């Protein structure tokens, strides 16, 4: 294969989450957050957010089983990734047919980054022929990206660079990684433990972000941070509290990176580097300016 002709990875295509209370998590996803429930398979409840068959699933089980799915261009690209990750000393294993079925994909390489986060590199994740029809009008258009907790930024950055990701910007050591034309799809946050920090879902307009705020206020559901706008990516965000400490985010308006390459920019870890409008995260240290 010629790595120059196409990227190795295409998108963040799912988050699989362990739930301590499966049905409460499922209610959150459908009734509060606004995803579409599509399937239940082997105790795993799946939800859609866009044209893909599923982008979120919850299952009972230890927290360590959570993973994120990264769509890989094709099988040869998966072979190339496997070779690169092994060379760099990352643990990988080929998914069994059962593992693939559970993930709704044709093939997968199950990898672990430098922090211990499970990253599923998947080929041909299942799409849906029917259009997305959510349970309430939250305005969601797609799973946009993820924020990952990192206990070993150097190794994690190495991991993502092997997949072809590039750094768009830094805020302190928070690292925004791009894998397509947008500013970032993956962000690494220095943290004391590994795990998924947030799953971000794009909504149609600012209107949806704001409507989701008042929807929550009326139901007294905690907002972690926002409304705000990331200065680096220009993305408007609202971080809300999801099940088991995972943040679910509504986002809109991320800037594109033009065809002209530019070096990654360094911003200081200060409140105004994290939000242009003035919002702050009080309780989640990874999102706040106080800690790094």
């Amino acid at each position, binding site marked *: 294969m010629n790595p120059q002709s196409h990227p190795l990875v295409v998108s963040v295509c799912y988050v699989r989450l362990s739930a301590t209370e499966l049905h409460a998590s499922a209610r959150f996803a459908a009734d509060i957050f606004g995803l579409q429930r599509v399937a239940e398979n082997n105790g795993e409840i799946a939800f859609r957010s866009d044209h893909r068959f599923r982008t979120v699933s919850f299952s009972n089980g230890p927290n360590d089983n959570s993973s994120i799915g990264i769509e890989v261009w094709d099988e040869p690209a998966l072979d190339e990734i496997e070779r690169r990750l092994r060379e760099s000393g990352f643990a990988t294993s080929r998914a069994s047919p059962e593992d693939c079925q559970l993930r709704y994909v044709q093939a997968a390489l199950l990898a672990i980054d430098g922090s211990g986060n499970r990253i599923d590199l998947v080929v041909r994740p299942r799409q849906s022929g029917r259009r997305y029809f959510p349970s309430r009008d939250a305005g969601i258009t797609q799973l946009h990206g993820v924020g990952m907790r990192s206990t070993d930024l150097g190794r994690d950055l190495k991991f993502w660079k092997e997949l072809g990701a590039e750094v768009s910007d830094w805020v302190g050591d928070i690292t925004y990684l791009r894998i397509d034309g947008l500013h970032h799809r993956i962000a690494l946050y220095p943290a004391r433990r590994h795990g998924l920090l947030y799953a971000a879902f794009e909504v149609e307009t600012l*209107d949806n972000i704001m*409507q989701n705020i008042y929807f929550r206020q009326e139901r007294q559901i905690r907002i972690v941070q926002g409304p705000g706008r990331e200065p680096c990516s220009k993305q408007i965000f609202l971080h809300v509290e999801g099940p088991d400490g995972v943040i679910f985010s509504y986002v809109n308006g991320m800037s594109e990176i033009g065809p002209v390459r530019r070096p990654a920019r360094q911003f200081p870890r200060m409140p105004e580097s994290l939000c*242009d*409008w*003035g*919002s702050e995260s009080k309780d989640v240290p990874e999102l706040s300016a106080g800690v790094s």
Partner: protein
Amino acid sequence: MINLKDVSYVRLGTPDMESAETFATSCLGLQVAERGNKALYLRSDDRSHTLCYTEGNPADQAVGFEVEDDDSLQQAAATLERLGHHVQAGSAEDAARRRVRAFIGFKDPSGNHIELVVRPERSGRRYFASRDAGITGFSHIGLNSTDPARDERFWTQVCNARVSDRIGDIPLMRVNSIHHTIALVRAPQAGIQHVNHQVQTSDDVLRSFYFLSERRVPIVFGPGRHPTSGARFLYFKGPDGMVFEYSVGVDEVEDEATHRPRQFGFEPSSFCMWGSKPAGMALPSGK
């Protein structure tokens, strides 16, 4: 017919000029144009001033509207007198205090003090804000009405205002292509209900939400979005209980000939499509 071109200024009495100046500059973000004899002139755009605080009673309020020329002003005075309004011709000194060539004063049917002015002054220097609130200019007012149907007739039949939309029986009225310049609000007595300044982007609305919240300025409505004009808004309280609004993205009425006012129900979602609810601010009551 009295042809209003635009709203020119608001004059507000206050017993505490110092607090008014502090709020106007450090919170609202206007530029001090001039500190006159017991008067503070504030700029928000290329006009020499659009808000004037005068030392005195907060109930002393006036709204100035620009008319074309002296002839229009004389005709307006005659029209108003014929309809039984007491019209006061402004003295040369009072005109100078308002930075206009000539003006008349009268009361609308609810008792609001209205001034019609000729040739309000512009400034040669561009507007330079005291804080980066993103203000692009003074744009409209909310005006109390003890009888919205009667006052709508006054503004649309005696003057040239046109109804752009209605919420219940509350008309939002334009005098030019901007969706509304006068919003009537049902209230037990006359008064200015709010003073609107436009800002550049919705970012400015949200930034000010956090900025003003941090400074403990009471946010009385918003951040929100009006389904009528499409504007993103934030209402907050200033000195003497006056409510100020920032907004952005007010629609323009493109085709004057074919525009028909839309009727919105008298309910919260007609005032905000995002779901914000007013707090500490009187919304017009339905009946």
